């Protein structure tokens, strides 16, 4: 049974396991790229681009993906540290009923907003940077209580001792500075601070990535124990799939600002449908994969999030891509960028659309060379198949790709969704 620290904050009717606690809907966060003396905006880094998912009371949602896919940006939007460009984050502050526009964290009334602030806490990756080096542990852990006027003086100290004991520290650590602790202990202090206001949700942004493996396990166990005792929900951000498997009830895989797969952790690990998730799983050596499954590995670099690939953003690296996965002129641009010998004679690109362009070269020879490359196995077969027009006129190369539809998440039953043309068909 859960133990509530502060019965005042409990609203019995609205705290049932399985109710949606937080809902992220069509969230976008685009960072402007400024350039030049006038600092004009020349583009946007689409760090998070149309992401939706829910977190239910008491559950752990694991958020995985490679570095730079937008995990931190997303978790900071959830924790209210960043204003989304568009879309919404809804949070159940115990208003009752289903989540609605009044529950948007950026439109809440003052009282609701204060409840949101108390009930969503965060633990950061860098255990040293997340504690003010000039404050004592008693001040760091006691600060939320002081800010919200819950305790002061001797009572505050006692509450801090209680919190420290819950994370495996104690009274003897009250009057110490952060630098006097080990990394694991500092992360415990961060966790104690996050627990102080008895929140419903803790956002954990790679909480163990900076720690030694043996210490990682201890912190994960602590988080597990606390979740049981306090009925916490976690948004657990990590790039470590074994951690997700250990911790998460549901897993969200992100790639270049998008959710590409989403479902119960067990299903994802048993029956991943998106080639990107499969590649992540395959890259993890200590998992007991099915030996017969084709092993897909991640190759190539992550495309620039300011110019994400069309349709399926993974098509530039996908081992099983089809002609319908979003081939476009940018794929040729990316090819040219990765090969200087082709790029150097290029004199101009005039695009008619994202699918059609005329590439002008200095010599006919150079145009023919690119033509040959585009018909060779240096480009994926799917890309060749998707090429509708490819011809050279003088020193100009004309190219047009077949159009393809946006590839959204497809429901695969029992809460499993994947954004891939093969989803549900390939196993």
């Amino acid at each position, binding site marked *: 049974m859960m133990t509530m620290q502060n019965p005042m904050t409990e609203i019995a009717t609205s705290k049932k396991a399985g109710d949606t606690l937080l809902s992220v809907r069509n969230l976008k966060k685009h960072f402007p790229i400024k350039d030049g003396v006038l600092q004009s905006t020349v583009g946007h880094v689409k760090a998070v681009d149309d992401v939706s998912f829910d977190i239910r009371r008491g559950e752990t949602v694991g958020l995985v993906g490679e570095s730079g896919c937008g995990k931190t940006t997303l978790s900071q939007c959830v924790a209210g540290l960043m204003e989304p460009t568009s879309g919404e984050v809804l949070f159940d502050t115990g208003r009752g009923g289903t989540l609605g526009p009044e529950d948007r964290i950026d439109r809440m009334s003052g009282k609701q907003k204060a409840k949101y602030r108390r009930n969503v806490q965060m633990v*950061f990756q860098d255990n040293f940077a*997340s504690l*003010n*080096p000039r404050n004592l542990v008693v001040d760091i852990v006691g600060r939320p209580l002081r800010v919200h006027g819950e305790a002061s003086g001797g009572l505050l100290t006692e509450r801090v001792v209680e919190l420290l004991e819950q994370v495996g520290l104690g009274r003897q650590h*009250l*009057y110490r500075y952060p630098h*006097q602790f080990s990394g694991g202990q500092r992360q415990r202090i961060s966790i104690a601070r996050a627990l102080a*206001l008895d929140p419903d949700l803790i956002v954990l942004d790679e909480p163990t990535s900076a720690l*030694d493996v043996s210490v990682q396990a201890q912190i994960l166990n602590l988080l597990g124990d606390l979740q049981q005792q306090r009925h916490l929900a976690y948004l657990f951000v990590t790039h470590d799939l074994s951690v997700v498997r250990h911790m998460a009830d549901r897993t969200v895989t992100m790639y270049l600002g998008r959710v590409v797969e989403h479902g119960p952790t067990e299903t994802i690990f048993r029956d991943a449908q998106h080639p990107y998730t499969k590649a992540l799983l395959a890259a993890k050596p200590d998992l007991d994969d099915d030996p017969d499954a084709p092993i897909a590995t991640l190759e190539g670099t992550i495309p620039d999030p300011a110019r994400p690939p069309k349709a399926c953003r993974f098509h530039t690296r996908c081992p099983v891509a089809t002609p319908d996965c979003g081939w476009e002129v940018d794929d040729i641009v990316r090819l040219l960028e990765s090969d200087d010998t082709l790029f150097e004679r290029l004199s101009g690109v005039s695009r008619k659309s994202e699918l059609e362009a005329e590439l002008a070269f200095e010599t006919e020879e150079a145009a023919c060379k690119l033509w040959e490359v585009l018909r060779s196995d240096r480009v994926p077969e799917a890309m060749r198949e998707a090429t509708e027009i490819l011809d050279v006129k003088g020193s100009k190369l004309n190219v047009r790709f077949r159009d393809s539809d946006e590839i959204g998440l497809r429901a695969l039953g029992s809460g499993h969704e994947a954004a891939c043309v093969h989803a549900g068909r390939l196993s």
Partner: protein
Amino acid sequence: MTQIDTPAKPLDPLRHDTAFTVRLRRYREISGTILSNPTTVIGLFFIIALLCMAIFAPLLAPPNVPDPYQMPRDWGAVRSPPGTPGHPLGTTNQGGDVLYGVIWGSRTSLQLSLIVVSVTVVIGVCIGSLAGLVGGWLDEALMRVVDIFLSIPELIFALAVAAILGPSFTNIILSLCIVFWVKYARIMRAQIILIRQADYVQAARVIGDTRFNIFRRDILPNAITPIAVQATLDMGNIVLVGATLSFIGLSESGIAEWGVLVSEGQAGIASGRWWASTFPGLMIFIWALAFNLVGDGLRDALDPKTEDKR
């Protein structure tokens, strides 16, 4: 409960700490580091000596009436060399006692540097914080002003301002205040922009603390170290620049101020009367050197890269 990983430093269970003893120990640790550098200690020694001189000036040299900051005149002993009875460091052309000028000059210098440093630190910290916290066009505008100020050498700028304001010691103080805040604004802004992004500031926001409290408790205390270092260096530099302005003649003649004394005494050097400008000149040198030694020592000791991971 799971087993705890080994602590970074062994804990002594018998030690009963309170916030007070722990803070005290930390300050002792930090001052230990600062004092482990011999040049800092030498500088500190001179600073203490100079401060004592300024504080106890009325005991060391009985104040001149009516205004102790004016040089006393002994018309019976004009241009006496050092060692003359009653005038151990000699006298000036007007019969001013050089020792009196040296002693009371330390008071003048302390006033000058303290006033200018405190005024400029306050102005600089406020403007730098405003620029760093508000950002946008206000930041742009303020930083353009700072750039313009920084493009003119300090001495030339102060000289121009003092010349416009007219020759007086007060105007020297004023002109130095106008010139010296700029560096603090620039340092403060850079610090704020850095610290604003720190995870512990984000953590304070998640807790729901107010912007003002975050500024006061997280940003300011962590931003202030380089300001303190610069202020120590400026305690020396300001006396140097102030004396230079006095030397050029932008102060009042006859006051007990080292720059003025050097200026008024330099004409006699050619005729062998070296003492009237050499002793005050030496004082300026010692003052500037002492604060620069300590300032450099502080910079090394408080370097954020070493400070917290000791």
